[in-house]
């Protein structure tokens, strides 16, 4: 029987899924790797470790579940997280670790680009917000602060390109990952000269951009042998995880939105046109040619609740972290919507959309003498979700959507989904696939293989298994509190800046 594999190189792990030709999951496996923080603002990963982990998981999955059950792998489709930068030398050797999306070392470079006249053009041409996460800013940082490495660099690639180079020997980048670099013209599908000029590089320092359906690559002979794969196995280059999660949630056209909450979060819509926001609050990434995924990312998703659990959870009697989290969710569900007037701004990690303020900080507001611990638990959760709502609300001024689809480890927890439903006052659906990114990659591959006529047909196969309906009374309560939440977030910008400055100087 034929099958296909999807390989998703994400921030914490590589996940490999095998699908049958009907798009059903046969099996999957993951292998994690760490993120290193050599300095507080730095986030790096070891490219060799990610490559070896990928190879190891691939090999084991094939041996344990694929070869032994006589499946034949027809194609492998890749996805990865966005925004990573890995400088490599002429021989393809990494020059140090990869700098990943969460790395904030380029704050000054981002600010300086924002003050230039061409910044508006770069934002609208490339679709990528001008922010330290963007490879454009990271490469500029290397130019300004690590001249030796910059000079030695033969190519600036992403972790996905590195894995593909190792497996196939070629430097190629798909349009989707390219569209998140800040260096790629999402309309003309080529590297953007103004961005290249700002970063101080020529286009040949980047890989060759190709369509997301491209399957010209093939595995190196040795890998075919050790992995037991046919040399005819097609490698589909695939897209970025954000875009594939959207496709995997069944969203490809207007009228629908998807909310993802894992450790960070995002609200996204899809369509045939870019979404033009004059305040530059939303990204426009390419899922495939003429398909755009637009939306806003937040830094402060599940990671903020995990922080809360570590500080204030009850770890007695040898409880594991997941049990402590569950206890807290139970506690939160005992409090009415609105946490009796206790509000929480979740900006522990600064914020991207919609504030785009790296200095934003967290706060509890409205505390009175009758508030108990459980109100804090509830308020923390609601604060994280108010932030998601605030992105969705502004997104709605550009695009209408009536139905929302949920994915990510946190968003699909019943309490979280219900609160989101009540906040948005819209119907929210949970899909039948357990991993939207893998599902999106499989749908892309199956479309290429001709199983589906086009991406619309592929997306239509995603079924919702559970539907949440809003409770009007809760919605009204949330809207009253949200007004204060939103005002506080903007009103405090001077104070955010001041406290951010003091904290970064280490004033105790």
């Amino acid at each position, binding site marked *: 029987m034929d099958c296909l594999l999807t390989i998703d190189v994400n921030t914490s792990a590589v996940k490999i899924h095998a699908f049958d030709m009907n798009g059903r999951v046969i099996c999957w496996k993951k292998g994690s790797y760490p993120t290193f923080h050599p300095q507080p603002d730095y986030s790096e990963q070891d490219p060799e470790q990610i490559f070896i982990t990928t190879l190891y*998981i691939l090999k084991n999955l094939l041996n344990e579940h694929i070869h032994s059950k006589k499946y034949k792998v027809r194609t492998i489709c890749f996805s990865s997280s966005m925004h990573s930068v890995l400088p490599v030398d002429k*021989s393809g050797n*990494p020059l140090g670790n990869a700098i990943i999306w969460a790395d904030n070392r380029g704050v000054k470079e981002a600010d300086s680009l924002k003050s230039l006249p061409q910044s508006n053009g770069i934002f609208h041409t490339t679709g990528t917000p001008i922010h330290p996460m963007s490879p454009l800013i990271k490469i500029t940082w290397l130019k300004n602060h690590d001249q030796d490495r910059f000079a030695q660099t033969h190519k600036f690639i992403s972790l996905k390109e590195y894995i593909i180079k190792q497996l196939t020997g070629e430097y190629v980048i798909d349009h989707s990952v390219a569209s998140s670099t800040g260096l790629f013209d999402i309309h003309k599908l080529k590297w953007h000269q103004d961005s290249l000029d700002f970063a101080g590089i020529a286009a040949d320092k980047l890989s060759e951009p190709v369509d997301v359906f491209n399957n010209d690559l093939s595995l190196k002979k040795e890998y075919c042998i*050790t992995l037991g794969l046919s040399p005819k196995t097609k490698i589909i280059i695939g897209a970025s995880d954000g875009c594939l999660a959207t496709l995997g949630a069944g969203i490809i056209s207007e009228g629908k939105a998807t909310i993802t909450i894992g450790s960070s979060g995002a609200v996204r819509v899809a369509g045939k046109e870019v979404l033009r926001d004059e305040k530059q609050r939303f990204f426009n990434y390419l899922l495939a040619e003429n398909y755009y995924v637009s939306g806003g990312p937040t830094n402060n998703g599940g990671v903020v609740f995990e922080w809360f659990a570590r500080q204030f*959870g009850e*770890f007695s009697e040898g*409880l594991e972290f997941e049990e402590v989290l569950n206890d807290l969710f139970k506690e939160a569900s005992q409090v009415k919507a609105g946490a009796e007037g206790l509000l929480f701004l979740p900006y522990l990690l600064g914020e991207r959309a919609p504030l785009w303020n790296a200095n934003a900080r967290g706060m509890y507001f409205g505390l009175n003498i009758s508030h108990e611990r459980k109100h804090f638990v509830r308020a923390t959760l609601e604060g994280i979700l108010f932030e998601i709502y605030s992105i969705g609300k502004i997104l709605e001024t550009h695009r209408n959507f009536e139905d929302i689809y949920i994915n990510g480890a946190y968003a699909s927890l019943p309490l979280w989904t219900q609160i989101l439903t009540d906040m948005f006052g819209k119907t929210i659906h949970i899909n039948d696939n357990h991993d939207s990114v893998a599902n999106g990659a499989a749908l892309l591959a199956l479309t290429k293989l001709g199983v589906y006529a086009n991406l619309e047909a592929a997306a239509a196969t995603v079924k919702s298994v559970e539907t949440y309906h809003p409770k009007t009374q809760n919605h009204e309560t949330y809207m009253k509190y949200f007004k204060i939440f939103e005002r506080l977030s903007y009103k405090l910008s001077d104070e955010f800046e001041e406290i951010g400055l003091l904290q970064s100087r280490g004033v105790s």
Partner: protein
Amino acid sequence: MNQFILYQGKSKELATFPYISEFANHKIQNIQLNSQEIKPSNGIRICFITEGKFDWIIDGQHHLLYPNDTSMTCPWQSMGGSKGFFDIGSLMWIIIKPKVFEPNGELTLGDWSGISETDQRVIGKILSLNKKPILSRLKSCQQIFQNLETEFFAKEMGYRTRINHLIDELLITATRHLSKQDNLRRDFPQTFLKLEQTLRENLSDPWTVEEMAGLVGLGTTAFTEKVKAFSGFSPLNYLINIRISEAIKLLSRKDLSLTDIALDTGFYSSQHFSSTFKKLTGYTPREFRKME
């Protein structure tokens, strides 16, 4: 409470225990200059504070110790009062001289100890890699010290065996506490990251699962389960992946021989390195190097 300081070679109570160089229960009522100068621990030194507040410098770092705190230092680590004398208070201590204890973690306690060779290696590793020599609020140490004191002075039948056991008990209790206090259940990802960093810094060591588990304060069963759930790998396979990742990096440095790379990254021979590398990547290290 009785007060005493027993010294090996001077106090007859220690004559049958040549591996104990000091054992004391000491109360300080007046400050005496130079009573606690900073010097090497000269053995595994375990001090338990019963009263007062002590301001010590251990390995160049200031530490404040309060009642129920325990310090545990290795032979090569220096320690003493920050002003060179004992602060006012009470404390108990013991200095154990292992047969072998090297800064690389190699530890042989001696024939008196009932701790297995494997566990001695784990203890050696944990102590030598430990950067925080203070065990806070470890009250169970006090009971062991008191039992030791009773056995030493009462000399009832079987006291030699008991004392040997109690010292094993003390070492195990303190080492377990040490590896647990920084690795709380609430943050396994953090624990895992720290373990990864330790492994990378000491990649040429032949790590065992016992050692890795001991280092993060878990039993091998729980450790293996947690690593598997968190990373998708068994602990040894995770380690092999780190070894190979580092090896790939070193392969691009043409001045290094394959044997050097193998040994640096913890393979016991270049053959072992080659076969593991080939099994995983499909290439021998030599082929991999040529490709680049």
